[in-house]
Each structure stands twice: as structure tokens, then as C-alpha cells.
């Protein structure tokens, strides 16, 4: 992408930006198909944007979508990994909060790896789970369903799905959450890091001696951090990681400044690296 194309609601997607393939086009969020019979045009359908953002095309998947503002509220989408908070439980389900002031999502009591009636986890209100959005339902009033296993294999895939014990969650923007997921799922040796983020690699290197850390990123704008291996430094290391990530999110720091920030905050929090 040399110069990004920014569209506003109502703008048409120019056909030269669409993937060149005969396979059916997949429409991502922020776009809709309108049927118009304009006399001057050969095609009867036009793609228009419904959200403001950068037009993003994926030639491999033959998909096109809009990358919209990074601070928006999370809208559950199938297959997204999220960090949900249990609100209460009923006979068959845990009722979970994905974002505040939104309806609760359902997580089956048996939707955990190896869970049976006897071995299912006993979660109470306020507990956190790392889960996948299974379905969002159709039409108004549809309920969102979550799961902590892959229904096909019965395993917690990818690893780490299930209850999150201890640690701390920090709130981040949904845009940052998406970037962190990309950055944490693929490690790269690039100078610029993945998705413009070097913070995780940098923290990983510097905290290795102190015992390292565990991290889980939810698309709903939450990041869970646990440093229980660091023993004495656990609390300070967790706070340091949280501060690094939230500061970078807030100020949109570039890789150079991210490195500087990590060094500065670790020094401030008196953590040896």
C-alpha cells in the first residue's frame, strides 16, 4: 500500500482498489453493497463505506474492509479472542461482560478443555476468562456465545483459552488490541517490529532475567499481564508492563520512542534488566 485510501461514509470504493480475482469478494466491517442502476455504469453494484477509515484489501483472502478509528467500542465478531469478565452464572451458562454497558454474552459451563459436569471450572462473578467468540447470532436480540475450546478438537486452541488467574488487566484502545494480537502471535526480527510495535519484544528481552511474563490480549480492548514468576518484582514488573503499553497506546509512540519508554519506565519502577 503506497498511499492509503481514506474513505468516509457514503464514499464509493474505486474498483481499481479491489482485489483482482474472479472468486467471490469477502466484505469486512465498514463496507456495504448497494444496488444502484446508474445509467452510465456497467456494473449494477457499488461498494460504499459506512465508517471512516483506511481501505484495506487482502488479495490472498480476496477480502476488503475498512480500518476505522482505533478508539471505537468493540463490537463482537465471530472468532475474535477476547477477555471477558464473568458477571453471574446460571444452570448451563456463565453470563459474561465483554464491554461495559453491553448485554452479557453466554459462555457454556462445559465449554472448557476437558470439562465435564464434575470437572467444569467453578467461576464466580468478577473472574476473568480468555475466550473466543463462537457466534454472534442473527437479527435483533441475538445472543453472543463464547467458548474456551475448539469445538472440533475439544482442545483449548490456541493455547491459553480458559480462566485467567491472578495478574492484572489493563484497558487499551481496540486498535491497539488488534495490533498487540498481531505483534504477540508472530515474533519477528524486524527493526520496526510487527504492526509498528517493538514493546513486547523489548520488554521480553529486559524482563527475561526477572522471570519473564505472561500476556493475553483481548480484542475488546483488554490486556492481561501476569509476572508471578518474578517473585519479589512481580507487582512492579506488572505495573511497568501496563504503563508501557497504555502510554504507547495513548501517545501513539513510534518504535524508537517505545524503546526509550521501556527503558525509562523500568528504571522508574526500579526493575533490574
Amino acid at each position: 500500500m503506497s498511499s492509503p485510501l481514506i474513505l468516509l461514509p457514503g464514499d464509493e470504493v474505486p474498483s481499481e482498489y479491489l482485489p483482482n480475482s474472479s472468486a467471490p469478494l469477502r466484505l469486512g466491517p465498514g463496507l456495504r453493497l448497494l444496488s444502484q442502476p446508474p445509467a452510465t455504469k456497467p456494473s449494477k453494484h457499488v461498494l460504499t463505506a459506512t465508517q471512516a477509515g483506511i481501505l484495506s484489501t487482502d488479495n490472498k483472502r480476496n477480502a476488503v474492509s475498512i480500518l476505522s478509528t482505533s478508539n471505537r467500542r468493540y463490537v463482537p465478531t465471530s472468532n475474535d479472542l477476547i477477555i471477558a469478565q464473568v458477571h453471574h452464572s446460571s444452570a448451563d451458562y456463565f453470563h459474561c461482560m465483554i464491554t461495559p454497558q453491553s448485554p452479557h454474552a453466554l459462555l457454556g459451563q462445559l465449554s472448557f478443555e476437558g470439562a465435564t459436569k464434575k470437572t467444569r471450572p467453578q467461576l464466580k462473578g468478577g473472574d476473568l476468562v480468555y475466550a473466543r467468540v463462537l457466534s454472534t447470532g442473527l437479527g435483533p436480540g441475538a445472543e453472543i456465545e463464547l467458548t474456551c475450546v475448539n469445538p472440533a478438537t475439544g482442545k483449548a486452541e490456541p493455547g491459553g483459552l480458559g480462566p485467567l488467574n491472578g495478574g492484572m488487566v489493563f484497558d487499551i484502545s481496540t486498535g491497539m488490541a488488534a495490533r498487540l494480537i498481531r505483534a504477540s502471535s508472530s515474533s519477528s526480527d524486524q527493526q520496526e517490529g510487527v504492526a509498528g510495535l517493538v514493546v513486547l519484544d523489548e520488554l521480553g528481552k529486559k524482563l527475561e532475567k526477572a522471570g519473564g511474563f505472561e500476556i493475553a490480549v483481548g480484542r475488546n480492548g483488554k490486556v492481561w499481564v501476569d509476572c508471578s514468576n518474578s517473585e519479589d518484582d512481580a507487582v512492579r514488573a506488572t505495573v511497568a508492563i501496563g504503563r508501557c503499553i497504555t502510554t504507547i497506546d495513548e501517545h501513539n509512540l513510534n518504535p524508537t520512542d517505545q524503546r526509550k519508554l521501556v527503558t525509562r519506565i523500568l528504571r522508574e519502577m526500579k526493575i533490574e534488566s
Partner: protein
Amino acid sequence: MNKEAPLSIAERDFILDALREDVRLDGRGADEFRPLKLSFGEEYGHVKVQLGKTSLIVRISAEVAKPHDDRPFDGIFNIAMELTAMGSPAWENGRQGDLETYVTNVLDRVIRHSNALDTESLCILKGVSCWTIRADVHITDYDGNLIDASCIGVMAGLQHFRRPDAVVKDGQVIVYGLDERVPAPLNITHKPLSVTFHTFDEGKLVILDATRKEEQASEADVVIGMNNAGDVCYVSKFQGSPVDALVFVTKTTVALEKVKHVNGIIDKALQADLAKRSKGGLAEQARAENDRPVA
């Protein structure tokens, strides 16, 4: 509704564990305010307060009205605060919540009942007309400690505000426009501010200027209102678990230091704004204001 979503157990536990090690999520000390920024708008009495991620706008306005029958020599001063969905998605528009009632009540007591604004000086003609001063507090971002932030905003606004000049001629009240006559500053008798503390771990840990998450994780809150001279004008502990009386004594010293510090920031911001205004061709006006004897 009008309630923030509850904290997760992990957050609650972690905030407490960290405080036990004297660590706060933003790296502050227990007795440290978040960075405070004050800016003034074009109009008199228009203040923007940014305290960490909590932000609000205060607007002071004046109107001629009839004084209350039982107090013919007094003007009227009101503080109006309405929480809207702008400050937090958890707040519902047009519906009063507990927080709104609580904060309004504390502001009333710290500023209004301590007579920070001399209402007698607002009288124009006994029993017939007086000034009504209204302070509107608009919460634009809520991340904890509404009370202190609003207090700072209202006090800064009152000191920044200039009301139009009014005279009585032959029993008639004449109000001059801001451009006709030099407007008058309000008569401020003292500068009270509040300092809010939150307690944790059975009252053993006390922090000030809590963020929203810290507030939610805390056991109780203590509000101390005082001025630069150290006169305490308000102390409250409304709810939550018991707090040792010694906390009030020791924290009053901390509060005094903070009040002086914050009042210093307000003074500095006011002076900077005055300097800016005088540069903008209003030099005459600014000087006249300074020379005006305080009644």
C-alpha cells in the same frame, strides 16, 4: 443504573497488593496528585481542568435577579452539576445518580457554605435586585476524583470571572455591557479546596486523588476541605468501612500542603491568563482590575 461496571477480582486484588508494596498503577506516590492542567477560555469564568484523565469544564455566569425574601441583602450563588453520558458511558442522560448528589453536596459545603464567595457583595438594591452567580460544572471525562477536580474548577472559575458593572440611579438598576464599563471581579473571601483520600486494607493504606479503578477498589473515602490558612471547613466520611480517627489528623497536614500547592497552580494560571489578555489590547482593563480595591 448510573453505575460503573464492577471491577474484576484480578483488578481489585492487584490494586490492593500493589498498594501494600507502595506501588500505584500510574507510578505515583500515595500522597501525590496526578498532573494538573488549568486553561481558561475566551470568556470570563470559563475554566478547563485536566487532572490526569479526569477533565471538566466550569462556566460561571451572572444574571440580575430578585434576592430571596428572607435575605434581602444577599446575592445568590449556585453550583450546578449534571453528569451526562459524556463523562462516562455508565452515566445516563437526564437521570440523577448517587454520585451526582454526593459531589454536588460536597461542593456546596466546601465552597458555598464556607462563604468563599461573599454573597453580600452581590446585592445591588436591597430586596429588589441582586446578582445571581451560577457555576455550571460539565464533566467531560471521568477517571476518578470528581470532587477535588470540580472544586479546583469552581474556585478557579470564581477568581477568573468578571461580572458586568451595575449601578442604581433614581431607584433604577442599570447594567453596563462588558465593553461599556470595566467589569468587576467577584469578592472572594478565602480559597477553600477539597482533598479526597481513599482507604484500603482496613484503613491501613491511605491514598489521595484516586483514579476511577482505585476508587472502585477502595473501602472508604475521606474528604477534607480547607483553605491556605489551614482552616478546615469540611470533613466527611460518608460511607464504607471505619477509618481510624488518627487518619483525619495526620492527613489534615497532607491536605494543607496540597491545598497550598494547588492554589499556587491556580494563581499561576490566572496570572498567565491575565498577562495574555493584557497583551491582547486589554492592558487598560487588566490594570484597572488590579487597582480596584477589594471591598
